[in-house]
């Protein structure tokens, strides 16, 4: 899936307290790309990721997915688009506290009204789920609630959730920011493996230059302006 951002800008507030978080960003992401985004705090990294993933709309400019402007879609279409084509990983994990790890992972499918278990269709999903949880080392934690899991485990559940619907592209906003260095490394290794094994497009924000260097393209934002490094 080809993603094109054309002169995308984002400003917050109005009048004297107006903040320009992103200024005229133009960017093309080709299928299979692995992008890293670096930049100082407050430079607009998260803002860019939110716009690219359809979580927030730009103040100006257009965002095309395979030539289609996603901000022209209805809420219904956009929601379906998010749960089928996009995976998003937050720095704060953002799991739903009442759901078990497994339910959290399966949520995009459940929202789609797809049968997650049982014979028809369910078979394929459950084998995929098994594959994912094996890869992420979550096998014995599936019936736990989020607050019963460690931070690293929670992030891995979040990763599984981002992958379960087999999206074309995965966005990750500092996925290792809340983890210690060992857990952080594990998570990055898994993301890279997913990129390699499943051929997904991967966009990762990070403060860690070693992680950034492993990406196929490295972007840097400063004061809302994007440059390719």
């Amino acid at each position: 899936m080809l993603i094109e951002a054309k002169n995308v800008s984002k400003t917050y507030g109005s009048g004297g307290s107006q903040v320009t978080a992103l200024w005229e960003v133009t960017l093309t992401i080709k299928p299979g790309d692995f992008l890293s985004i670096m930049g100082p705090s407050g430079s607009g990294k998260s803002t860019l990721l939110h716009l690219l993933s359809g979580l927030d709309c730009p103040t100006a400019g257009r965002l095309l997915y395979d030539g289609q402007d996603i901000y022209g879609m209805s809420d219904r279409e956009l929601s379906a688009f998010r749960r089928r084509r996009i995976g998003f990983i937050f720095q704060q994990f953002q799991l739903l506290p009442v759901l078990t790890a497994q339910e959290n992972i399966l949520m995009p499918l459940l929202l789609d009204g797809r049968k997650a278990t049982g014979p028809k269709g369910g078979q394929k999903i459950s084998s995929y789920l098994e594959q994912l949880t094996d890869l992420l080392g979550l096998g014995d934690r599936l019936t736990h609630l989020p607050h019963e899991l460690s931070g690293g485990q929670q992030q891995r559940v979040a990763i599984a959730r981002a992958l379960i619907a087999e999206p074309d592209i995965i966005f990750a906003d500092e996925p290792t920011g809340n983890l210690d260095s060992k857990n952080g490394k594990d998570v990055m290794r898994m993301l890279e493996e997913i990129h390699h094994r499943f051929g997904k497009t991967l966009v990762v924000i990070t403060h860690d230059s070693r992680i950034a260097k492993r990406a196929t393209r490295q972007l840097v934002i400063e004061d809302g302006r994007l440059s390719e490094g």
Partner: protein
Amino acid sequence: MRSYHTLAWKEIREQKIVSFLILAAIILSTLMTAAVGQSAGVLSAMRRQQAVMLGGDFHATLVQLNEEKARMLEADERLSYTGRSVSVGSMELNDLLRLGLTEYQGDSIETVPAYTKLAEGRLPEAPMEIALPKDALQFLGFKGKVGDRIPLSLSKALRHGVIVENYEYQADFVLTGITESNYLGYTTGSIVGLVGEGTAKAVLPPAYLYYDIDVRVKDEKGFQACMEDISEKLELHELDLLYNGLYLNALGIRYHEETDSSIGMVGVDDSGFSYMMLAGILVAGLILTAAGLVIYNILKIAVARRTGQYGILRAIGARKGQLYAIVAKEVSLLCAMGIPVGLLLGRLSAEGILIAALDLLSPELFLAQDAGQLQEMIAANNSGKWGFLAFSALIAFVAAHLAAMPAAWYAARVSPVTAMHGTAGKNLKRKSRKMRNIRNFERYYARLNLQRNKSRTALTILSLVMSITVFITLQGFLSLLDVSAAVPEHLGDYSVVNEYEGFTMDELAGMAADRNVAAVPAQQFSLYELDAQYRPVGIGTDFGLGLGETFQIFGLNDSWMDYVFAQRLSEDVMDELKAGKGCVVRNPLQIEIEGETVGTTSIGEGETITVAGKKLPVLVSMSGYDGYFSVGNNGFINGVQVIVSDRIYAELTGRETYAELRPILEADADRTTFEKKLEGLCGRRAGTIWVSYEQTDRQLAKSASQINLLAWGLILLIGLIGILNIINTVYTNIHTRVTEIGTQRAVGMSVESLYRTFLWEGVYYGMTATVLGSIGGYLCTILTEAAVSNTLALVPVPVVPILEAAAVSVAACLSATAVPLRRISKMGIVENIHFL
């Protein structure tokens, strides 16, 4: 910020919705307690006023005191009031009524306002002057005017212990005034006339000159001891100390029930007061609990949401007591705003509530002649009940603070560390964690969310359950009180009764000839007591009767006969009955009294009885609860009732007057003219009482609709509280989950689907509450019906109210959800996620 207390005020302003909800709850609960408090104040004032009207403005009366003892009493320090009077003598007016003359000395007459309402002239002042009530003059057959002389034959009784001695004498009095008739006297069998000071000395020999002293004691708590001490010192016979029971009860003074005597009224039962008070307190309690739940729930949530803030305050050194004070202060400020408003509204509604409730539930409680008089009494007593209002304000204040306690306590207990880390999801528990086949994710998620905060869910549902229970119960109650059913069916437009001499044939004919009158059903009535052999006294019969029975003969004219029997008898039998060729017999009711069966006589159909020498075939025999015959609203007197045509009544009883007339007016009749004529009849025939059914029916219907209104007000109030709770809970639920909402949307939940999740939650609240509330309401309905009919029985399930309650509560839940949710979903996803 002047002090940390200012924080309370800031929080009130910041959390507008929370503050508003608490304020509403405080206003509602104060409104209710104030209405009940005000009503209680008015009721007790009316009860006191009524007691004074009935028995006089004193605690007790000591009778038959000689001059020496009277002086001792008057010098007694413990008494705050003594009033002297002398009973001058009494005379018979007719079989049922006596006239008693009393000389009030000094200002003692002021304690008996019921006797001194003048219609004409003035009260007697000098010896041998007299003032008599209108009705007494009628019974005496007095035709003169004020200033005329009235000769009376009197008898003065003097009791030595239990032996009574009479002194008979005749005296001429000068009529100085005519007082209003006081119908209360009819229940005790005596009417009071007033004579001027000095009369007793003039007419009674010194041996019969004794005084009655009315007293009030200073120390109401020591009343009984004081009275006993006085009795002992004065060597009074126990029959010579009469308690003014009604007044003592109204004042709440304790006294020995067994010596309770009949100075006031016999048979005036004031337990109605207690029931009304009890009902009021129950309702107020219910509302207070419901409102307390709301306050508790709201504050608990509000405080929980500020846990972080409190943690920081604690971390920078706030003491527990200071945090506690912030929450308490917040409630106090809201009370300061809400309670005055509630008091005002409550005070305003109390008058209407009282009028409606008294009118319907106990019109005779205050012996008011009509609703208008009752309303005047209420209005007159509706001011200055500050004590009761202050008390209700206090109750509302305390209740609000009690409800706030857990939240304040929680705030004070917040530990700096846990508070700042937030608690979202920390204490979640889930029993079943097996992955199920989730068919509808939204519903599934809603159910999980319900279990998230069990106590909040339970409270919300509880308050809704209370609302629904009240709704269904009151609906059942209202259907019992159906306005049209409240108006009974009766014969005629008026009931005109004279139980003494009755109305002559001419008067009946005269009334029937009136162009306003369509017909005049009329009945005659004679009652015969039984002698030792159970034979009626004063009339010959060929049969004996039984223990505890009486013998009664009713003579009905044709139109009354038609009204009673036309439906159930054939034309032939009717003709015979009307022609006086037979009779109807209504046999007595059989009742067990202390092991003996009373009312055993039974005369069957087809038998022939002989009454006053006339043979009468029994055409119809009635028994059990077939309905009974009576005059006016006297009710049923047990015995054998023989009903005949008025054509042969005189032949049987030797009397031909009618005891009761029930004129039926023409459709276009002029009521005012007719009622003037009725007044004229009252003037001619002493002891005549008439009531207009049209008027009583209208009053009944009015009261019923007022009660209806009242009940709906109550439903609304309770419903409002339930809805407040729902709004609060849903609002909080949504606000504590904004981040989650953002996440849900980020992973692809559409706004529509998000709505459905919360709506399902609302539906679950509504449905659970409806099911529980319906069960509660059904049980209460059974109880109310049982209270009304005195039998416990299953009643049909009130389907319509249940459906209504379900619809309203689900709708309330849904709308409470829709508003805040709309706002949140309008926010961006990113904004949601970073909400906190």
